[in-house]
């Protein structure tokens, strides 16, 4: 099963779980499964058309899936998927 790392700001939607183990063949399937398991995640990850939001980056290993095969990027047992949303804090 592939490992999905949930960033701290989104853990409130995954019962504070930092890592999920998901059985899937592609990044798209992973997103589908985790948004089914944790419906609150959906509006943070996907736009109303169902595409990954442009302020959320998904990395397979060290690489952005936009530089791979987007949602069709294949995953295997050892793949680590990281979800990294934009954050803006720093001053106040």
């Amino acid at each position, binding site marked *: 099963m592939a490992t999905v*790392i949930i*960033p*701290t*700001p989104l853990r409130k939607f995954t019962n504070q779980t*930092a890592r999920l183990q998901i059985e899937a063949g592609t990044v798209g399937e992973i997103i589908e499964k985790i948004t089914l398991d944790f419906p609150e995640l959906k*509006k*943070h990850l996907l736009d109303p058309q169902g595409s990954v*939001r*442009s*302020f959320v*980056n998904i*990395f397979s290993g*060290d*690489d*952005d899936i*936009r*530089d791979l095969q987007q949602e069709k990027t294949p995953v295997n047992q050892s793949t680590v998927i*990281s979800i*990294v*949303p*934009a*954050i*803006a*804090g*720093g*001053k*106040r």
Partner: protein
Amino acid sequence: MSTQDMEFSKEELARYNRHIIIPEFGEESQLKLKKAKVLIIGSGGLGSPALLYLTAAGVGTIGIVDFDVVDDSNLQRQVLFDIHEIGKPKVEAAKRRLEALNPHVKFILHNAHINSGNALEIIKDYDVVADGTDNFPTRYLVNDATLLLDKPNVYGSVFQFEGQVSVFNFVNAAGVRGPNYRDLYPTPPPPGLVPSCAEGGVLGVLPGIIGSLQALEVIKVITGVGEPLSGRFFTFDALNFENRTFNIKRREDNPVNGKNPTIRELIDYEQFCGMRAVEEKPVKEITAKKLYDWQVSGKKFKLIDVREPSEFKIVQIGGELIPLATIADHAGQIPHDIDVVVHCKAGIRSLKAIRELEEKFGYNNLYNLKGGILAYIDQVQPELTRY
């Protein structure tokens, strides 16, 4: 600057000795620091450690941009300031502290809101920019301004337990330009989806770590020592102590410096970030002064406070506490037949509460306190505790 200024005095050689004796660094790199002009945008959580370390390290000229004054609630993480500076402009408080740390550094203060009208003018004379601001519009503004002016931008950002660092728009020794913020995140989240640190909080030591990493990258960019974090994106999860460094690339569709640029000057970043979007119908607002009029006139109305109990303990203005997350469950306590004012700290959570109540229960008598309890303190009761 005269050539004499660009040599080191005995005092400086002694001060920077621990740098100079590193074989890979040496007097040459130290001299590059002295010649450099660095602009730190935001002297808060990230800016504090970045300014302290860059001053200590001997950067010759440091510009500081901040419009804020020092507040009690800053001291949990903004280690540049102390209790004697509360209420004073941050740039001036910062200068006092930093001059005491290193008298060989020249400081240029910009006590202003950086915006599309002044950003190019403020940034143009500096060699490197470090972005330690706290909101998406300013992040995109600083990004675009540094692209238009061809400056490297050392980016750091924090939220709760999460930190991010990268070096944007850096041209390496081979002349290859690295990616920037718009390559990483083409568009910002809609307002309200991602809370700010002022709303969502941040563990104080985290900006200490991330701001220090920004200082490190600024020094590497200036001196050419090591490999700057260009084309790479560092994330740090302080909760699990996990860090990852991802590869990021330039994109052809980048509107500022992609294949077919459409943005050739600074734009309205509030609008770009949806702050002025009219997609949702506006809610009724009331100013702090008007609320005060209602309170002293004996008018029949109800005041609801949707902040958290921990905030209620710090300061309150007579509202009934119903935290935002529980507002729908307590709709029974909110009347339909008299005016109801809803407030939070700054006016965002109360807006969400009103939208939820209007949608689910059809209220049409709810007023959002504009600017929240902070505006009330500023305009009506300045003796109350700000946080």
